[in-house]
């Protein structure tokens, strides 16, 4: 088994390399393409001549373009994204500081969306064509048609402003400094609305695709065989059919992860959540280009990694994909 997994990981890694290269190339290309001097773009709106000179020599903007690209690439893949123009800290450490908050919110939302999405998808496939199925289909169409950040704004208006049940934003109560269990409770309380907002899109995507895959799977011969052998309904549904449909579910989660991360950016802004999204917003607002491009490359690397992981998971789940 081990050699198969090793070979698999190597093959996926070979796919990931061109993608990482593409991300770095896009970033480099547009920094060069942007109107004006690339050093001036990296240095911000009112740089001192010394700072400009420092950037020029750091990135070698006086050398040929291919040499500049190699320097940029070398720095990017080793996590050296330059220095934030605003905080003057290394961009990578600023990102690492914010990253846990984003992981907490996005991770929770993905777990919630996967669990509910799979349940809803399986339930509507089981009763395909019924009134419940139609209702679920209609709801999921609405779910992915409504922009996430607006859903967040509406939830704030309803649950935080009108009803005053849940906090408007932030990650913890501003005036209290809770410790231990109380702190966990406080953060969880602040997470309810942002997680609900972020889950909507992924949940509807998972439900739609799981439903379609389950309808396909339930139509296969092995389901008939399982029925003939007298397997229970639950066992047929989950062990025989869903095991096969889950490949589709995992593929959707992988493919939509980029959209989920982008959604997290706007949801964090709506709820003043102190993660990567706020970082993007502040970087755009302050024209802090090293921070912006660094946050972009970092997020893209994560998206590529998640896609590779979902590919590997699918291959392990379904031996037919292995060649």
């Amino acid at each position, binding site marked *: 088994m081990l050699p198969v997994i090793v070979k698999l990981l190597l093959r996926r890694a070979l796919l990931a390399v*061109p993608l990482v290269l593409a991300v770095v190339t896009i970033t480099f290309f547009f920094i060069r393409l942007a109107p004006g001097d690339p050093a001036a773009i990296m240095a911000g709106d009112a740089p001192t001549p010394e700072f400009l000179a420092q950037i020029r020599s750091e990135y070698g903007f006086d050398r040929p373009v291919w040499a500049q690209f190699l320097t940029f690439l070398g720095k990017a893949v080793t996590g050296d994204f330059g220095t934030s123009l605003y905080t003057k800290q290394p961009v990578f450490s600023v990102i690492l500081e914010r990253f846990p908050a984003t992981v907490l919110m996005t991770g929770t939302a993905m777990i919630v969306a996967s669990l509910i999405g799979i349940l809803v998808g399986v339930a509507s496939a089981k009763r395909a064509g019924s009134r419940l199925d139609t209702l679920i289909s209609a709801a999921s169409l609405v779910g992915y048609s409504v*922009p996430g950040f607006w859903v967040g704004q509406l939830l704030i*208006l309803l649950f935080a402003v009108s009803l005053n049940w849940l906090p408007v934003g932030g990650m913890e109560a501003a005036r209290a400094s809770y410790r231990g269990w109380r702190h966990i409770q406080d953060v969880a309380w602040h997470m309810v609305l942002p997680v609900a907002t972020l889950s909507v899109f992924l949940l509807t995507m998972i439900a739609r695709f799981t439903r379609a895959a389950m309808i396909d799977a339930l139509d296969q011969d092995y389901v008939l065989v399982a029925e003939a052998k007298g397997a229970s309904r639950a066992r047929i549904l989950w062990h025989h059919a869903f095991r096969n449909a889950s490949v589709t579910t995992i593929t959707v989660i992988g493919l939509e992860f980029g959209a989920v991360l982008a959604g997290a950016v706007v949801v964090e802004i709506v709820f003043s959540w102190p993660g990567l999204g706020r970082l993007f917003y502040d970087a755009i607002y302050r024209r802090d280009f090293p921070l912006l491009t660094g946050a972009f490359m970092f997020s893209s690397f994560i998206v590529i990694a998640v896609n590779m992981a979902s590919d590997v998971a699918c291959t392990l789940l379904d031996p037919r994909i292995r060649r």
Partner: protein
Amino acid sequence: MKDGIIVKPAPFAGRPGWGMRLFSGLAASRRLSASGVLGVAFVVIVGAGTLFAPLFTPFDPLALGADTLQAPGWAHPFGTDDLGRDVLARVLYGGRVSLSVGLFSAVLSVVLGMTIGMVAGFFGGALDEALMRITEAFQILPKLLVAVVVVSLIGSGLTNEILVIGLLSWPATARVIRGRVQVIRHEEFIAAAEMSGASWVRVLARHVTPNVLSFLLVSAALQVASAIMAESFLSFLGLGDPAHPSWGLLLQQGQLFLQQAWWLTTFPGIALAMTILGLNLMGDGVAGGRAGAARR
């Protein structure tokens, strides 16, 4: 079948016009469902509202007023913003911006996706393999974040928004069209055209294109929806054009006054959601629930 409804255009029969083929295609296999009709209604309502905006409101969307942050009432049905501007006017005129960006970038992405998909599906082999690898790479890249970085670097503005969204959104169309062309490729009428000496450009343009037209329409509706969504995302992050406020920009401004003025976010959001939902319903209605596949 002499003069009845043409179910599937016979290869050697006199060629009906494109409009007729399209109509017969829709009527035969992909009848517009009830939800599709609802979608058309949504889009028509929003479209008419933005197109004939001056009929619905006397106000200028950019004109400042003395009544700031007024709740909805007789004078201002959707209320006013922090600078006294009429929100109804801003929503209606903002729709022109959102819809134009959506339409133009969808045209760009559909043309690009159609070309790539047709070439890949028609020629197959190594070319197909290469094009599909590129398509996959584009699908994995976080499209909206790429758009954010590129627009920040090259500068915001409607043209840049259209170009960036259009150039990033073609993979969905390319995959659908490729799949369709792979099926058509082996039909007799293609072989007949090739044997009679038609060049591949001619075969693609005159024999393949009419047969993927209904798929293109579905794809276009879904692309407009996703482009409008992408535009609102960029504007919400402050990358819109302040001189041409779109729905996303209105929602960004509304965020600042979320706790004082619910109408600043509620109304632009309803317009945005109605448009996207309408377009998705249209796409779904025509495709018979295959939008999930067409979307990717």
